[in-house]
């Protein structure tokens, strides 16, 4: 009940501050568009690079909005109220991450096919790419939440957050981009998807607890 209220409040806030959400999506598009400019326009070469580039750009774009996940709440005192709520804190964290993913991660997933077309990927590969992002971006949000909780109130939180989180999410990147490549090579992608799904389940179960503990430490 309380968690649902937090989820809806965060969605409403994201909708009223659309500029933040759009900035991350535009950043995603720009980063992914820079690679062909630097690497040359050989179609076969770009088709091979496409999935990896889109995944790296999505990773960086999702780090962009992460520091604000708890920072705004900490600044205006809402975070103290969350810590003192009768609802367990991990549940509230999960609600916040869910709203954050819907506003940011899902948007990146929806923009990705356009970028994939730019790299000349065929329909099947685009489908696989979107599916891997659909499983992978929640992992980025969940693991990012741990970093965001630990860096609440720290100066230069954005850089520190990326240093903490990027190494932790490389497995998602490897298996996400790897699945598209495997599919293009005619191999089975079941293993990749199983591992991505396992990462999502593990992150969903563990990250809220870790982030909640991080928040308690940060606010002490």
């Amino acid at each position, binding site marked *: *009940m309380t968690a649902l209220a937090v989820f809806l409040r965060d969605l409403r*806030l994201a909708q009223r501050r659309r500029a933040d959400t759009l900035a991350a999506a535009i950043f995603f598009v720009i980063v992914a568009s820079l690679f062909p400019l630097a690497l040359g326009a050989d179609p076969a070469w770009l088709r091979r690079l496409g999935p990896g580039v889109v995944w790296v750009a999505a990773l960086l774009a999702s780090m962009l909005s992460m520091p604000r996940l708890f920072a705004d709440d900490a600044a205006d*005192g809402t975070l*103290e109220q969350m810590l*003192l*709520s*009768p609802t367990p804190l991990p549940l509230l964290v999960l609600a916040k991450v869910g709203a954050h993913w819907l506003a940011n991660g899902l948007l990146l997933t929806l923009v990705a096919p356009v970028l994939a077309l730019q790299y000349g990927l065929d329909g099947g590969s685009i489908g696989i790419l979107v599916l891997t992002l659909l499983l992978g971006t929640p992992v980025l949000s969940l693991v990012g939440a741990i970093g965001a909780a630990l860096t609440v109130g720290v100066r230069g939180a954005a850089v520190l957050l990326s240093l903490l989180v990027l190494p932790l999410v490389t497995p998602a990147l490897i298996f996400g981009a790897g699945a598209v490549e495997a599919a293009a090579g005619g191999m089975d992608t079941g293993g990749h998807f199983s591992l991505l799904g396992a990462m999502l389940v593990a992150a969903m179960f563990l990250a809220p607890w870790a982030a909640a503990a991080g928040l308690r430490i940060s606010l*002490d």
Partner: protein
Amino acid sequence: MREVRVRVRAVLATHDLEARRGRRVLFSRLDLSVAPGSLLRVLGANGAGKTTLLRMLVGLTLPSAGRVSWRGRPITADRDAFHRELVYLGHAAALKDDLSARENLLSLLALGGVRCEAGAADRALAAAGLAGCERLPARVLSAGQRRRVALARLALAQEQRLWVLDEPFNALDVDAVDWLAGLLRAHLQGGGIVALTSHQPLPLDAVEAVMVRL
């Protein structure tokens, strides 16, 4: 036998509480016990540790020694049950600039586990002197009005026995001070406990009060 009776009466208590900031000891060996229906007033100069003490009472800051107990049990033993009986209003009003006064009040109540209709929230805002401001975003409200939105929550928090308020009278005008004093008096008469800090003389005569000077 007597020990048990004391425990039941004194609901909020601290035992040998100590706070440090770096190497400096803000206060130590603080033993308090506050019975239902009484006010705990924390006095002290700026930087004496008033806010730290209030944060320790609710469990936001961990004491460097000693413990805080509620109904005879340490507050860390069952946080969720303790939080169900608690309202804490800190320095920051916990308002979102992009949400309206009503949305802010409703989401704060939801976070505190209080179910409330929009109508009841509007009535509480009207009682706080904010009739006509329900739909205004918090961004355009004045400091005093923001304070009133946060305090309007108290009118709907009769179930919560413990109110911990950090400088609740700050930025309030004369009418709002009277309104808040009325709320606090009613809560104390109903057997609740109020812990607060304030630099002004309180308009609360004839209430049982425990004073702490840090």
